[in-house]
């Protein structure tokens, strides 16, 4: 297209100013006020990885398929080795969960972890039995999701997120209760 004509340019400028004014008066905000609100991922996001040692056979497939070499095998008191994950290296791709032939590793949907010391990030097998207890940052947390109605985006509050529980490693595989 050729250069704009003067009338077109002036109209475009007025149009833009009008657009800005419209949104100043009736804004459409997408912001999620983390940590007061958390997004809802329906429990399907790939998070912290845990281990049920009674199912583990020490085959070391998880350590061999980890793309970042985050899994080391630790010798336990019963003379067998079990995997421990270094969460400084883990990218949470869940290849280890998907490769384990006995469904010993299990996923959770907890992604928000922070540590004070580097040594705390290296989880040994006994630490991986249950998901870590994260202290609450704020007293009230709400799950939100963005819904689209009449062409506008609204944030819908869905209630409190529950505690993070172990999830089944594959469909129709039972979770170990303890």
């Amino acid at each position, binding site marked *: 297209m050729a250069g704009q004509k003067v009338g077109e340019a002036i109209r475009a400028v007025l149009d833009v100013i009008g657009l800005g004014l419209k949104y100043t008066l009736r804004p459409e905000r*997408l912001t999620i006020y983390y940590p007061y609100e958390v997004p809802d991922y329906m429990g399907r996001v790939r998070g912290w990885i845990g281990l049920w040692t009674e199912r583990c056979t020490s085959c070391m497939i998880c350590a061999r398929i980890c793309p970042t070499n985050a899994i080391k095998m630790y010798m336990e008191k019963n003379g067998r080795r079990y995997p421990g994950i270094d969460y400084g290296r883990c990218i949470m791709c869940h290849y280890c969960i998907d490769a384990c032939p006995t469904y010993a590793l299990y996923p959770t949907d907890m992604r928000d972890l922070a540590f004070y010391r580097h040594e705390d990030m290296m989880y040994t097998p006994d630490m991986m039995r249950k998901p870590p207890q994260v202290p609450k940052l704020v007293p009230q947390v709400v799950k939100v999701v963005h819904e689209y109605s009449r062409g506008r985006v609204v944030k819908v509050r869905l209630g409190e997120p529950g505690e993070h529980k172990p999830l089944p490693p594959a469909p129709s595989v039972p979770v170990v209760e303890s």
Partner: protein
Amino acid sequence: MGLKMEQYGMVLSEVESGPGGKRTLELLFGPQHPTSGHIRFFVELDGDIIVDIRPDPGFVHRTMEKLGETRHFMMNIPLFERLSLPDAINVTWAYSMAVERMLGYDVSERAEYLRTLFGEMSRISVHLYDLALHAIMIGSSTGFMYGFGLRDLLVNLWAIATGARTTPTWVLPGGVRRAPPKAFYERLAGFLDFLDRKMDEFYRLVVKNPVGYYRLKDVGYLSKSDAAAYLATGPGARGSGVDWDARRDMPYGVYKQLEWEVRVHDEGDSLARTLVRIEEVREAARIIRQLLKAMPMDGPLVGHNATHKIPPKEREMLNELVRMSGYYVTTTNLAEGTGVTEGGRGRYFFQVFGAGTERLFRVRISTPSWQNLRAFMKATIGARLMDLPAIYGSFGFFPPEADR
């Protein structure tokens, strides 16, 4: 610490070029700069005109091609995804196509549809990313926020479907890893309507706005023969009239069965490239809408050859989840395979050579930003200094992808 002023301050070098030499100012448009990305340019300025530009790539070189030789070929998928994270699906799709051709795997029909759907979402994601960066390089922080705000909604959809927001790790040789839930399809339809409206506003705010329009018009001109000679790709080439798109000319996925157009503009300046991007977002939304109607909701997620390798007790869950167990025991053949996909920035090319073990012998990657670098240099010479961000953004130059 005592640097002398003559060493550190302005550098005016006399460059003799025949009768009447030029005095040029050499500017280090380095990585520590708000709009240069992870690359350094040595820019020689004569007044306000750029006389010469020499890029200095390599800051983000992560030796990905070498790393691809040292690990199981499945462990390369998260690695190559990080070549260009906004466009994660198209990159891993190219790699998976290459590995499939090497192994002789086929892809199931449901996986082809799913891959195409997510590939188009990935195209929208990378176009939003590039347009947003382009807008803030021109100066409009509103355009930046629009692009990234929309991308945030899209990335939340990826989180429900594949498990992670920006690193899906979802395409496997032979198929895909997980099936998206029902809520994904409903939210996607709502997102597309919102996207159409917001892209229209983005266009009005940044491109049709005479301030932005004249910033982009006739800037960074790349003629059609130059674009073809320098092997430009993606919107860099299609904005100059070169009508090539890997989705149509080297077909893959289910693009042949859908109705869509390749957007080409002839002018060759930044405005044409930006318009190609904006129109490609609309075309991608159109493709996704057609796919939503034609998507098979049931069926295996990997093809037959991959299914043979999966242990029988896991074959029942193939409609929902594909585990790594079959792939872990697969070794590569002594063969080679190539995969070409059209990402948002251009065409990705992977060529893999198997070694007989579970590792590959060689992975060769060619990314669009690396291809476009030469064309980008050609387009910048003769422009003004303030046009450098505009041209940079219009090519969609992404240094981590260029340096691999």
